[in-house]
């Protein structure tokens, strides 16, 4: 049996000032096995993987790789011993090319007479990309010219290549939420690759908040909660409900999207969009958003829904068309103008656009509505604290207190902070761009409940769902876009929920 074990984690703990991120975790990874890792935001998944690859050492405990002691001091050492990792946050150098990124840190292999032979490197890179089924990305392209999904594919092929190259023997590949920015088609490609690796005898640890993915791909699932390993399920035992119960500590209420609570929108039109367009991105987009309505936008990457979002949030100006807010024409030159009217968004890219990482939770939550924290002319720290505490409690944010820097929160908890900011802003129209990306199921449920509650209170929501399910479950109405134009408007009222296929056929 022990012959079959590739990697062992013995009683590993990790303590940060004020946080016990991991407590006495042990696991075995067998050769040629895909292990799923699930847990709430901040449960310690990323922390564990970072210890495995060597970004940080464990506070206690030990690890073994192929029966030998394994204690990498840096990721390079981990790589050499046959461990590779795709990080949760992007880790490609955006001003270098795809090829240079794939062999980043490995340039020595291409040295010829002291100089790097770029041509050889790009040829090799082409092959590496081809191996993973990527043929439409040129290795000479700079990363910054690729969209996020493509970057992710490059990243994955890079790690797969590194792991394969490291040794003839079986290696271990760590994937921290690799699918959160991928489209369904890309996810399927990825899964095919993962299975191929498995068949070659490599092992994979796979982290995701999408339980269906976990169930689809994993041979075994470890469940984490508050730094403890609270469960281990074999493939055949895994059900969504079991996972949920272990992760959250209570059983799912079943009614995931709270459809029962969905109310019908009111008559009043809050936002009226008349024939707006953005040159080269989309055109002829018109719709009305009613008070209390949740309006979903669906479409594949490049369909233009993101750009509609950017225009409504004031980030870019439309090249044509008009926007009316509460009956009056409005023009936004920056998101601040939109916020003044009462429109605010939860942006898609958390690290780049969402959090103010250097600042405390308190500042992050109150920044969009400082007037609410004023007492007289000045901003009152006390009020800021009250507001923050309220949202920390409401959204169940895992943190030491409101003075903690947001950059030290786990991915999902940081997302909750962005959400809290939006909720605290007293806006009338909320633009939710992938609001639950990287958020664990428990928190998702809370967020769904909040969205419902807000809609019922008369707020209007524009939703770009993280999944199609989410869009269907939450929206009153769905607009489908394809190649820059609206292809269909679909009713999604309480008793009239469309099937996924009904939407997909207008997307493709």
């Amino acid at each position, binding site marked *: 049996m022990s012959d079959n074990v590739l990697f062992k984690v013995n009683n590993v703990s990790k303590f940060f000032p004020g946080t016990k991120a991991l407590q006495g975790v042990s696991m075995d990874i067998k050769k040629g096995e895909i292990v799923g890792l699930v847990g709430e935001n901040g449960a310690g998944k990323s922390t564990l993987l970072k210890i495995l690859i060597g970004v940080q050492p464990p506070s206690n405990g030990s690890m073994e790789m192929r029966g030998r002691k394994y204690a990498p001091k840096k990721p390079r050492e981990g790589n050499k011993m046959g461990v590779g990792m795709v990080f949760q946050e992007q880790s490609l*150098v955006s001003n270098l090319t795809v090829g240079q990124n794939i062999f980043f*840190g490995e340039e*020595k292999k291409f040295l010829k007479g002291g*100089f790097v032979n770029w041509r050889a490197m790009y040829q090799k890179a082409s092959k590496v990309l081809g191996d993973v089924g990527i043929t439409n990305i040129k290795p000479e392209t700079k990363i910054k010219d690729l969209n996020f999904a493509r970057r992710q594919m490059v990243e994955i092929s890079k790690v797969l290549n590194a792991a394969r190259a490291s040794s003839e023997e079986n290696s271990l590949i760590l994937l921290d939420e690799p699918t959160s920015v991928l489209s369904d088609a890309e996810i399927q490609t990825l899964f095919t690759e993962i299975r191929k690796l498995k068949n070659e005898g490599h092992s994979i640890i796979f982290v995701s908040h999408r339980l269906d993915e976990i169930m689809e791909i994993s041979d075994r699932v470890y469940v984490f909660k508050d730094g403890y390993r609270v469960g281990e399920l074999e493939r055949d035992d895994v059900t969504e409900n079991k996972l949920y119960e272990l992760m959250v500590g209570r059983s799912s209420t079943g009614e995931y999207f709270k459809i029962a609570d969905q109310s019908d929108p009111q008559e009043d039109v809050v936002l009226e969009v008349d024939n707006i367009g953005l040159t*080269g991105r989309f*055109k002829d987009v018109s719709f009305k958003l009613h008070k209390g309505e949740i309006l979903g936008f669906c479409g594949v990457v490049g369909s233009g829904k993101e750009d509609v979002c950017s225009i409504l949030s004031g*980030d870019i100006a439309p090249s044509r068309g008009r926007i009316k807010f509460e009956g009056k024409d409005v023009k936004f030159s920056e998101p601040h103008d939109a916020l003044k009217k009462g429109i605010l968004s939860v942006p898609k890219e958390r690290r780049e656009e969402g959090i103010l990482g250097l600042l405390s939770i308190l500042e992050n939550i109150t920044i969009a509505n400082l007037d609410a924290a004023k007492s007289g002319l000045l901003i009152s720290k006390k009020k800021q604290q009250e507001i923050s505490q309220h949202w920390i409690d409401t959204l169940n944010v895992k943190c030491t207190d409101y003075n903690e820097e947001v950059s030290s929160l786990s991915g999902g908890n940081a997302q909750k902070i962005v959400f809290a900011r939006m909720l605290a802003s007293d806006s009338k129209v909320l633009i939710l761009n992938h609001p639950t990306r990287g958020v664990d199921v428990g928190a998702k449920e809370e967020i769904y409940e909040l969205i419902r509650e807000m809609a019922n209170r008369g707020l209007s929501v524009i939703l770009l769902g993280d999944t199609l399910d989410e869009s269907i479950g939450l929206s009153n109405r769905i607009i489908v876009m394809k190649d*820059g134009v609206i292809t269909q408007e679909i009713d999604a009222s309480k008793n009239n929920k469309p099937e996924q296929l009904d939407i997909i056929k207008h997307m493709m």
Partner: protein
Amino acid sequence: MSNATDLSIAEEFAARVKRENQRNRVTQIAPIIVLLVIIGIFGILNKDFISGTNFITILAQLSVPLIVSLGVTFVVLMGSIDLSVDGVMGLTAAVVSLLVANTKTAMDLGLMGIVITVLIGAAAGFVTGFIQVKAKIPSFMVSFGMSSVAAGIALITYSGIPATIQDSMFRGIALNKFLGIPILTWIAFVVFIIAYILQEYTPFGRYVYAIGDDESIPRQAGINVDRVKILAFTWSGLCIGLGGIIGSARLGRGTVLVGKGNLFPVMTAIVVGGTALSGGKGGVMNTLLGALIVTVLQNGLVLMGVDPYFQAAIQGIIIIIAVSLSVTRGRGTIMK
């Protein structure tokens, strides 16, 4: 929806991409355009500006700022800054004058003296980089301190009365020509080629760009970021040192004043060429153009006898115009 609309969005997209590419191309060549426009204007206003003699003069004047800014470029590419230019140039100018044949000391090390002094420059850069990395102090502050320390040491080495250089080989760097071009210009070209190779054909060059883009990524990838940083500062110090040496060869005296007032022209050359201070963008090619712009501008203003009161203002405005043409401002670009 009709096929026509689909097509037109696609067409629009293509047109847009084309326009953006055009604009990008313009920003990329903006420094060249600016340079040509400046040359054109000076050429029209003063017939002596475009002449063989002045061409040689500009090449000679270009050398020191070019060499120094080629060094500092690597530091800027990492998003750091090197303010030690004035001090370290002063130091090497003073030291080299005492090591080659001179009126103050009995030394006569010739070429060896130059090599030692170049190493002193590199050592100063090394120390700056080392302290920045190990003590985790912003390079702005370390190099600010280093400039002061180096200038102080320079004064101490010659105790205030500068040496006059008597080594004719050393003076030859400034006084002699090879193929009609001053030797110091050849040196600058060699440094340029080395810098270009460093940037384009070595892992070091890639790491410098990566650090400028986002330091945490190469760190995570297991690159020894600290070592790369120290190396970049060492290279910077080496070039600054060489600049000081050539400055003193030109002047024939080893005074700390050789370094004075070089920092801002050097930084201007780097930035006007299109290298971003935030790091990760630009490079030695840009710096070559930037150094040319700065040198030509300075040369032309003096040549035309522009009132010294106004020279600064004219330079300032041209710098702003030049950079405003060469800066890329994509959606969501952040200007610091």
